[in-house]
């Protein structure tokens, strides 16, 4: 006979114990250290930092370990931790011209001042499983080293800007909105969109960008420049009256040069899309630049062709993987009260239909 | 020196606890127009009441522009607000919160919200000599049948209610007593 289901608390405790055991896996295999994750799974670490909106490689590595390698879960851990941190101040905007570039490529020029730097990229690797990696303990051959540039590395789009060939970006000292501290208000502004994309899900932003390439809001992008490297972070200290460098962060920046616009009164100009992420997130930064460009249709006087990537509300409201996965997965919570109410309703409607049919049959018989 | 000492005093000793109790009183007051609650823990320079000081500590911070009016707009009060709350002191038209006596409040200058965002309206904290459940008759959300409160005006609050869902929301303070009148309340003389 029926006894009300009890024991939710014990079930949760047991589930957590089992989860911890599963996380550790076979005890005969050495446990992963945070340092190992940070150093050897760096691209996972930087994705967690970028979408977690918190630059701390050790915490990101810890989150990956705790999440058993589920990166969205790791991002969630970082986000939840991040909201509890007190805010001591706001840094100055970083200047990516000051970047010490590990990688810098331009698709629009054969060579550029500052040079093309291929850097540690997968691009020209042949995607063949390297079974040598399965054998442990071998130190890699050291890569040749070059002297880093001391002077700033100019942005490729600046060369176009000097000729007036690319649409200018007016400097703006307004503090951008912070979507982690204010509810999103629509229609939004470009700073809001860029912030949302920078922490948006890599897969979502990638697919949105890809859709523009396939014709859903095509905007003919060239990678004007992609650069990855360390930039100094400075902060104004009111007590001192000047800025000091408080550290360096790694960022990935992508500027696209897109098809020009123009009219009878205005000469044609190239336009821009922009992507910037924490850490080494090249696929994400390029995707972000394409989506940013697609979302600028109104500002640049283009038609809205109804493409998903042009739809600000659609993109902004669905790019966050923590919101999306939470809501998606909540449907596994009990819903039996609502289901019961639908059961009642569908039975009632079917009863009424059956009754009506019976009456009809009787009438016909009479 | 006296000013500075005054400015440093009168905050919460234990903000999480004190603010939670103060908010409960503020919420009960707003949810039940005409009910008189007791609220304490804060002390600001005269003539600010304990109730108003506590309300400011509970609801205001750097994100809430505050307008001080009449004899509440003093250096001592500004110092106190600056030290404990950090709310930017603004003019009436930009205010999210307003503090002062009824006759000093520039009612027609205050934001009443927009049709899209009726919540973007000012909350006015009115200092009173006393609060009593007499005078104006109140009905509407939060009131079972009818309530009374010694409002400083009748016609204004009727007009304010007619703007619903736009309009101003009010707290009334006297000593450690607190009552509220949201825009949703119908007022009869």
């Amino acid at each position: 006979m029926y006894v009300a289901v009890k024991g939710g608390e014990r079930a949760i405790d047991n589930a957590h114990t089992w989860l911890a055991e599963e996380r550790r896996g076979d005890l005969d295999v050495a446990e992963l250290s945070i340092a190992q994750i940070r150093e050897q799974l760096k691209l996972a670490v930087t994705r967690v930092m970028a979408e977690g909106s918190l630059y701390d490689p050790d915490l990101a590595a810890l989150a990956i370990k705790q999440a058993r390698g589920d990166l969205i879960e790791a991002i969630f851990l970082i986000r939840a931790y991040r909201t509890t941190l007190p805010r001591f101040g706001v840094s100055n905007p970083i200047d990516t011209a000051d970047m010490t570039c590990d990688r810098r490529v331009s698709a629009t020029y054969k060579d550029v001042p500052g040079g093309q730097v291929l850097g540690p990229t997968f691009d020209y690797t042949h995607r063949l499983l390297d079974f040598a990696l399965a054998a442990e303990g071998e130190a890699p051959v050291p890569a040749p080293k070059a002297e880093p540039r001391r002077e700033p590395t100019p942005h490729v789009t600046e060369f176009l800007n000097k000729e007036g060939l690319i649409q200018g970006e007016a400097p703006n000292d307004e503090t951008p909105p912070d979507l982690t501290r204010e509810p999103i208000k629509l229609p939004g502004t470009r700073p809001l969109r860029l912030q949302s994309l920078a922490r948006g899900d890599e897969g979502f932003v990638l697919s949105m960008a890809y859709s523009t390439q396939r014709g859903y809001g095509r905007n003919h992008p060239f990678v004007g420049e992609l650069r990855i490297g360390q930039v100094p972070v400075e902060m104004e200290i009111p007590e001192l009256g000047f800025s000091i460098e408080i550290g360096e962060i790694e960022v990935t920046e992508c500027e696209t040069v897109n098809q020009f616009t123009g009219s009878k009164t205005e000469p044609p100009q190239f336009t821009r899309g922009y992507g910037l992420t924490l850490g080494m997130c090249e696929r994400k930064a390029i995707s972000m630049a394409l989506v940013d460009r697609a979302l600028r249709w109104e500002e640049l006087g283009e038609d809205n062709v109804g493409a998903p990537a042009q739809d600000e509300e659609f993109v902004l409201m669905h790019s966050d993987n923590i919101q999306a996965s939470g809501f998606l997965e909540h449907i596994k919570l009990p819903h039996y009260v609502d289901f019961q109410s639908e059961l009642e309703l569908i039975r009632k409607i079917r009863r009424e239909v059956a009754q009506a049919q019976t009456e009809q049959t009787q009438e016909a018989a009479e | 020196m006296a000013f500075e000492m005054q400015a440093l005093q009168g905050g919460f000793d234990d903000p999480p606890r004190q603010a939670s109790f103060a908010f409960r009183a503020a919420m009960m007051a707003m949810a039940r127009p005409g009910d008189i609650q007791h609220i304490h823990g804060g002390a600001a320079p005269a003539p600010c009441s304990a109730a108003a000081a506590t309300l400011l500590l509970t609801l205001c911070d750097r994100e809430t522009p505050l307008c001080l009016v009449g004899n509440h707009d003093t250096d001592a009060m500004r110092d106190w607000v600056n030290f404990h709350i950090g709310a930017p002191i603004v003019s009436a038209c930009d205010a999210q919160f307003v503090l002062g006596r009824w006759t000093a409040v520039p009612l027609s200058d205050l934001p009443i919200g927009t049709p899209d965002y009726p919540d973007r309206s000012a909350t006015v904290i009115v200092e009173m000599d006393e609060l009593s459940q007499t005078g104006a008759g109140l009905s509407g959300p939060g009131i079972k049948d009818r309530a009374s409160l010694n409002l400083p005006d009748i016609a204004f609050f009727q007009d304010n209610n007619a703007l619903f869902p736009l309009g101003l929301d009010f707290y009334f303070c006297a000593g450690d007593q607190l009552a509220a009148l949201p825009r949703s309340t119908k007022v009869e003389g």
Partner: protein
Amino acid sequence: MSQDYNFAYLDEQTKRMIRRAILKGLAIPGYQVPFASREMPMPYGWGTGGVQVSAATLTPDDTMKVIDQGADDTTNAVSIRKFFQKTADIDVTEETSKATVIQTRHRIPEEDLREDQILVYQVPIPEPLRFLEPRETETRKMHALEEYGLMHVKLYEDIARHGNIATAYAYPVKVEGRYVMDPSPIPKFDNPKMEMAGIQLFGAGREQRIYALPPYTQVVSLDFDDHPFDPSKADAPCDLCGATHTYLDEVIMDDAGTAMFVCSDTDYCRSRREAGHTGAQSAAQLHEVNA
């Protein structure tokens, strides 16, 4: 109590922001106040809005009850109750009458709430017009202009097709004759209880909205003169306590699909059985427990 976090987890600035939203919500019953929802240490969609509203509302003197589907022992209710025990060190109870703050998902307790009680709802989609118009920019306009024709058309189309309004839960209501409001996914059986003595607060974390109903606020379920609102429930008494006036869960008992009906509000059912009420299968259940 955990020393690592502030009382009730949220920092004071966040609580103030939420408290201001709650007050505006109470001042404009049924209107959804945007608020800067924080990322909580539990997933969006699992009660983050309700948890933030509760965290901003609780005092150290409160006694809290958490229910999901009417029950105190469902896993997510357990998890949320534990969260507040840990971060706010408050007393908890399963008894509705002993609670001062009740957080709920999908039900309103059967027992009438008192004036000193606060009911906090977890809300997944706060916008009642969302499934008719997915764009926030549009629905905001519709609320501003009080343009609710689309909702009536939808309900009327249901009647034309099914002979009934095909909404069984999250049944839309109109508040004080002004705002159309989503009551959260409670069964429509619970709608009439929303005119109550307690304060009702609604939190939608992912959608960044808070709304509220002061006590005794007029809450009318949308309907038509020729198709009046019908707060239906399973046409059966509770098999454990015999109640005929409560919302019931249908429990499948065996492979043949034999069903029994039991109160969804587990605390209410327990208190009735303790007071001597019996249902068709209460003896059998007693036997089971003794064995």
